[in-house]
């Protein structure tokens, strides 16, 4: 992947559910790095787009490229291994284990997750120590260091959002696709999460997030993609795009 090709782009992407076109995106190219916000009214196809980009939904037509590699029909686990992390609107955490273990689980390619290594114990302890250290570091990054041994299901909603972010980072991804990472979260925590996204983007990552709140988008996004009825109706810098009449109309409708 050269630095100038978009890390993630798609073209002619289409998906229908029961005859209803949920997605028809002609051409969408995400920038090399920085923060891109996807906005749009409910049912605009934002989550379907993320699902199609990450293999959770098989598009009926079109292509998705990660760098120069086509990933259109790859399964979600392959896409994750290629460096695309994904979070969901509804919290996807292992609620009955600790915050630390959730992040450790998200660490890729663990020898201890193979049966033979588990049975013999060969090399598992050292690997666990490394993974524990990395996971602890990520929990420190998102500000959950004091919640390390709390069960994920017992954390507050905002803390769970932070934990999902830490899990996304466990695989050291190049691209982050976050579905409403700050929705329903207390204003202070939301600001905290947005600050983290800014820091992550500054490290050279592409951070894409779905968001309803325009003020949050204006504050952090370098690019905004507006969707309505499955299509991208506008894309560009927030100050150029968000005041366009067709965008305003889509939201009013």
């Amino acid at each position: 992947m050269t630095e100038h090709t978009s890390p993630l782009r798609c073209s002619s992407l289409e998906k229908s559910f029961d005859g209803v076109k949920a997605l028809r995106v002609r051409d969408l190219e995400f920038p090399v790095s920085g923060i891109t916000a996807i906005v749009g009214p409910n049912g605009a196809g934002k989550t379907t787009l993320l699902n199609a980009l990450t293999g959770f939904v098989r598009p009926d037509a079109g292509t998705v490229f990660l760098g120069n590699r086509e990933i259109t029909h790859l399964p979600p686990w392959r896409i994750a291994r290629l460096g695309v992390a994904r979070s969901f609107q509804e919290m996807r955490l292992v609620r009955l284990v600790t915050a630390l273990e959730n992040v450790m689980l998200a660490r890729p390619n663990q020898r201890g997750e193979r049966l033979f290594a588990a049975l013999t114990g060969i090399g598992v302890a050292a690997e666990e120590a490394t993974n524990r250290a990395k996971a602890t570091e990520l929990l420190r990054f998102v500000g959950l260091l004091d919640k390390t041994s709390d069960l994920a299901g017992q954390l507050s909603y905002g803390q769970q959002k932070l934990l999902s972010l830490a899990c996304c980072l466990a695989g050291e991804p190049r691209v982050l696709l976050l579905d409403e990472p700050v929705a329903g979260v207390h204003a202070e925590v939301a600001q905290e999460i947005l600050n983290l996204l800014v820091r992550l983007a500054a490290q050279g990552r592409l951070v894409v997030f779905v968001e309803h709140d325009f003020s949050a988008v204006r504050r952090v996004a370098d690019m905004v993609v507006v969707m309505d009825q499955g299509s991208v109706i506008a894309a560009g810098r927030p100050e150029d795009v968000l005041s366009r009449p067709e965008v305003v109309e889509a939201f009013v409708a």
Partner: protein
Amino acid sequence: MEYILHLLVVLSIYAILATSLDILVGHMGVLSVAHAAFYGVGAYVATLAVLALRLPFVVAAMLAVVVGVVLCALISLPAANLRDDSLVIATLCVQVVASSVFVNWEGLTRGAQGIRGIPPPVLLGVSFAGPGRFAVLSGLAAIVAVTLARRTTSGPFGRLLHAIREDEVVVLCAGKRPAIVKIVVLCFAAGLAALAGSLFAGYSGYVSPTSFGLLESVLILSMVIVGGPGGVWGPLGGVLLLVLFPEALRFVGIPANVASEVRQILFGLLLIVVTIFHGESGLAPGRVLRK
């Protein structure tokens, strides 16, 4: 004394069965009612290997494990993407087919009359005839099996199983393949069940389809659920309770033919009571956290 040693053998065989099933039910969240099928496959393969192929017991037991694992791999490859209810139905089908094969493949299994005359195992020139000596053998096998099972349910592997139980999407997002893990673990549990089967054949000297039917699968599952799935000692508690409890009925003076009926009724009652007090499904621990 003989009687107590006999109970020890029975307990150790069920300990292997319940602990291996608990990896699936309690830890990975896959409810299987086909465990007795692999138990039976192990018993028949070991029996035929000893009687027809004249293999020593240890080799026969290893062969039983290999056949159990391979069969399970063949069955679970297409079934690995099934989830929840449909997976339970799939295991039910496996059990029904296996029972039917045990009864109807007469050339191999001698059908309903079963196969008699399996000699007691001989290891390094020592015969393990009778409950006393066999208890040592089966006890050792149970300790090894429980230790191995424990290793798969703790550490990074256990964490992975628990994640599959809770939400496979989490596992996919971490770049892991829940379907492959499920196949591997199903095969591992089937291998342990086959090991238990070979021990049963070597101990009782007689195998017949009734020992490996759906009721047997339900009994093993009951041990897991009654004992509390997803723990280390839980299934072993269930084994103790469900093996010793019917034995106790003997001493109450209930005639043998009535006792077996009473046993079924009491099992049913016990299961109902446990599921009521163990949350809605009686499955994974701490389900209360879920809405």
